[in-house]
C-alpha cells in the first residue's frame, strides 16, 4: 500500500506547464527525495500535494483518498505537513507559540470556550504548550522557546519550521530544501535530525534538496524532475548513473 500516490499530476499556469503528468508513489515509512535543477517544478509539486494549487489534470491520492482540490487546512488534517523553502514563520510570535499554532489541530476546546475563558480551554492551551515544548526539545530548540521567531538565527529558524510542521502530527512530512544555506557540519546535523524524525516519530518524509550529496546520503528513493517532467526514479545509485539526469544537471551547469 502506498501512503501518497501521484497519478499524472499536471498543472498549467497560462501557457506554462509547470508540472506535467508526474506520477510516483511513496510507501509508508520511506525517506523519499525529490530533486531536479532550478525551475524543475519541485516546489510546485509540493504546492499541489498540500493543496495550495489545484491540479489542472491527474490525481493525487493520500491513503488511497483523492485529495486534489481539497482546501489546504483539510489536507493538513488528513496528515500532510510541510516546511517552506523561504522560511515562513510567524515572525512576531515566540518560537513556542509558533509550534502551538500548529499543535492546535489537536485541541479539544472550541471557540466559544476560548471566548468565555473556560478553564477547559485554558487547560487545553496549557496541554498544547506542553506538547509544543516537546517538539521544540526534539529539535533542540527548548532554550529559545520564548524568543521571537524573527529574532532567531537562520539555522534555528529552519529547525523551528520543522518542529512546527511536526506539531500538526502528520503521517507525511514534506521538507522544502531544509538544508539550504547551511554549512557541511550543519547539514550533517540536519541529516541526523531527519533520520531521527523517521526513527523516533515514525514519519514518512518527502524532501526537496539541491545538494546531491545530501540527498544521496539520506534518501532511499529519489525522483528527478526536469522542466516539470519526471525523468528518472529509483534508488540513489540508479539515479546517479542515469544519463538523462546527468544531462539535465550538466546542461544546467554549462
Amino acid at each position, binding site marked *: 500500500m502506498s501512503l501518497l500516490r501521484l497519478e499524472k499530476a499536471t498543472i498549467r499556469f497560462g501557457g506554462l506547464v509547470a508540472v506535467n503528468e508526474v506520477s510516483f508513489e511513496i510507501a509508508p515509512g520511506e525517506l523519499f527525495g525529490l530533486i531536479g535543477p532550478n525551475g524543475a517544478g519541485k516546489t510546485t509539486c509540493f504546492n499541489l500535494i498540500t493543496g495550495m494549487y489545484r491540479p489542472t489534470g491527474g490525481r493525487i491520492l493520500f491513503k488511497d483518498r483523492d485529495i486534489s482540490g481539497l482546501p489546504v487546512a483539510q489536507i493538513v488534517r488528513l496528515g500532510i505537513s510541510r516546511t517552506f523553502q523561504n522560511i515562513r514563520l510567524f515572525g512576531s510570535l515566540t518560537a513556542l507559540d509558533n509550534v502551538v499554532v500548529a499543535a492546535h489541530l489537536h485541541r479539544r476546546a472550541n471557540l466559544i470556550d476560548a471566548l468565555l475563558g*473556560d*478553564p477547559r480551554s485554558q487547560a487545553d492551551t496549557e496541554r498544547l504548550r506542553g506538547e509544543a515544548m516537546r517538539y521544540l526539545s526534539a529539535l533542540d530548540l527548548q532554550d529559545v522557546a520564548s524568543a521571537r521567531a524573527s529574532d532567531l538565527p537562520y539555522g534555528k529558524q529552519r529547525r523551528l519550521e520543522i518542529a512546527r510542521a511536526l506539531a500538526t502530527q502528520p503521517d507525511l512530512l514534506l521538507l522544502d530544501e531544509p538544508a539550504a544555506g547551511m554549512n557541511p557540519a550543519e547539514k550533517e546535523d540536519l541529516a541526523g535530525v531527519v533520520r531521527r524524525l523517521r526513527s523516533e516519530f515514525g514519519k514518512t518524509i518527502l524532501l526537496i534538496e539541491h545538494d546531491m550529496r545530501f540527498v544521496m546520503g539520506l534518501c532511499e528513493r529519489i525522483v528527478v524532475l526536469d522542466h516539470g517532467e519526471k525523468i528518472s526514479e529509483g534508488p540513489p545509485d540508479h539515479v546517479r548513473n542515469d544519463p538523462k539526469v546527468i544531462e539535465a544537471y550538466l546542461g544546467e551547469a554549462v
Partner: protein
Amino acid sequence: MHVRRTIPAAVWAALIAGVLATGCSGSGDAQKQEQPSGGEAPKTSANVRPQPTAEGNKAEGDTLKIGIVVPINGDQKPWGDDALNGAQIALEDFNKQGGIPGKKVELVIGDSGSNTEQAKSAAEKLISDGVLGIIGDVTSSNTIQIAKSAFEKGVPVVSIGATNDDVTKQGANVFRVCYVDSFQGEVMAEFAYKDLGLRNVALLTDRKQAYSVGLSNNFRKHFEQLGGKIVGEEFYETKQTTFTGQLTNLKAKNPDGLFLSGYFPEVGPIVKSAKAAGLNVKFLGGDGWDSKEILNSGGEAIVGGFFCNHYNNKDTRPQVQHFLKRWKEKVGGEPGTTMAALGYDAMAVILDALKRCKSYDSKSLTAAIEETENFPGVTGDLTLKGQNGNPRKRALVVEVRPLPEGFVMRKAIEPKDLGQ
C-alpha cells in the same frame, strides 16, 4: 469533565443575572428621575408640551451666563460663525442700551462641531457650567439634541435656525426665532400655486439633511392640498457635485417649477446645470438659499427664482438697517447667511426676557421668554406667547435679481394670510 464544564456555565448565568440585577436597580433610579417629568406621555396630544420639572440653573454673583451652541468647526461653520457674530452684536447693543444694572451678561460659547453628538456634549457642558439659558443651534438635528438635554435640566433653549416642526415639541422650555418648515412650505406652496400659477412642480431634495427632507414633505403636502401636482422627486446628498442625472429625469417629467429644498452650496450649481440641461422652469426654495453666494454660484440661471426667507437686506424696517450697520462695523461687509440675523434675534429675545425676569434663574427666564409678545426683531415682529415655542411672525418671499439688486423682497406673508 462534565462537572467542570457546567461550573463556568453557571458562573456565566450568574453574571448575566447580575447584569440584569444591577441594571434593574439602576433603572429604578433612572425611572424615578424621569417619571414625574411626564416622559413621553403627553406627546400624543400635539399641542401640549411637557413641562420641565428640573429647577434649572441660578445666577451666581453678578454674572448672568447665557450659552450659545453653534458649529464653529466642521462643514456648518459658515452658519455657525454668522450666528455667533450676530449674537455677539446683540449683546453689545444690549449693553450699550444700559443692559441690566448691576449685572454683567456673559456669552459662553460651545462648539457643536457640525454634528449631533458634539452639539449635545457642548450643550451639557454649558448647562453644567451654570448658564441660565442656551441659544442654538443653526440646524434642526443638532437643536433636537440640545433641547433634549436642556429639557432634563430645565434650562430654556432659543433655537436660531431649527425650522423642523418637531424641535419645539421636546418641551415647554424650547423656543425658536425662526418660522417652522410647515409654515415655510405652505408659504411657498401658496406662492407657487396662487401667485405664480404653477401646477406641476418637481422636487429635488437633499437626502442627507433633515431640514431639506422636512421642507420638501411640507411643500408637497400643501401644494397637493391646493390642487397642484408633484410630478417627481429626486434626491442628492450634501457635497455632491454633479446633478445632471437627477435633472435629466426631472426634465422628462415636464414640470412648470422646481422646488429645491436644500442649502445654497448645492442649489446654485443645481440651478446652473438645470438651465444647461434645458429645464426652463421657475426655481423655488426655502431659507436654505439665503446667501449672496447663491448669486455667484447660481449665475444667470438663478435670476428669477423665488425663495422664502426670514428677512431681507433691503427691508426698510429700522431694526434691519441698524443690524446691517452694526454688522458692517463689527464684522465688515454684509452677513453671509440669514443665520446672522436669526442669531441676533435669538440673543435679543433672551436678553429682552432677562430684563423682564424677576429673579435670575432658568425657570423665570423660561417664563419670561414665553411671555415675549410683538418683539421687534431684525427678522420681523415675533410673538412667542401661547405659540408652543414657535414664533408667530411673518415670512418673506424673495426674488433673486441680477447682482446690483440681489435679493428683492416680493411679498411678506403673515400667518393670518394663511388663515392661521
